[in-house]
């Protein structure tokens, strides 16, 4: 069974799908993890943006940072996407962390000096099984 989650301060809500659960909540983020041992997470972050930064610029800056920080980073996809009724940018990338191949799918929205970044991360061999869950959470995002 899935449930609706509303962050108490950051002004966003989303559907928490089974088998995920809220693991951590902070002023600017919520972290969802699989309700079982594993490395798959969904993280939603709110970020103050300079001026009138657009989602595409937010994605560009974010991808540059990932390329600097992650080992064997590779961008697989980057496209405009509908996210919870707004237009944003969806990206897919891969990297290696602690010797494991990981896949990162991200959705970014930007408006009114605020950015919203949803990141689904999982071991690459689990990606095909989790991709639809990531999609569903992105589609459920509201602010």
């Amino acid at each position, binding site marked *: 069974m899935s449930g609706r989650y509303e962050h108490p301060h950051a002004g966003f809500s989303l559907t928490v799908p089974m088998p995920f659960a809220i693991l951590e909540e902070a002023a600017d983020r919520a972290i969802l993890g699989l309700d079982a041992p594993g490395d798959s997470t969904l993280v939603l972050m709110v970020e103050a943006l300079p001026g009138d930064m657009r989602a595409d610029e937010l994605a560009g800056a974010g991808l540059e940072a990932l390329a600097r920080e992650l080992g064997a980073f590779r961008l*697989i996809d980057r496209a405009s996407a509908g996210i919870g009724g707004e237009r944003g940018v*969806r990206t897919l990338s891969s990297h*290696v962390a602690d010797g494991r191949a990981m896949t990162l799918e991200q959705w970014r929205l930007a408006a009114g000096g605020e950015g919203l970044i949803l990141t689904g991360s999982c071991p690459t*061999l689990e990606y095909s099984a989790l991709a639809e869950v990531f999609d569903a959470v992105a589609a459920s995002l509201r602010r």
Partner: protein
Amino acid sequence: MSAYREIDVRREGRRAAGRLEAGVARLLVPRGEDLEEIVVPEDALPDALARLLDLGPRPVSPAATPVRTSVEALAAALEPAGWEPAQPPGGGSAEDHEAIQGLLAAGHVHWRVEVREGPSSGAPHALDLEVLDTGVGLWLVQYDEAEVELSPATATAVFRRLAALVSGH
């Protein structure tokens, strides 16, 4: 003999082949006149295949819709790339050929990946993925007897299928 899976990659008439065994993938990949061996852990194989096939962001037209044609028309349009259709050719029409030619007009790369159980598994089973990488985006190639459907796809959708080929789910 231990269980293993065979990997077969065909791209524009060139072929890379190898096997996945005990958590390690070994592929012999053509480089010029030589063969280069690529060795990666199983979980890195989807990404290694993505690199080999040059999978990356592509345009996706919101208006793009599936194109259905005969295997024969597709084979004719893809000549002379050395493509061998996975199904026997059926009849084709001039309209089929025209539709495919339009899709391929801006250039294309055709590739296919197959991962199948080795003979020792006792349960022959193969998963495959065939794609046309064109100037107007990526198209999944899916067979239905003598016909074939080309469906527009994002690089994300293609990578999901590559990951599924390796993970088996």
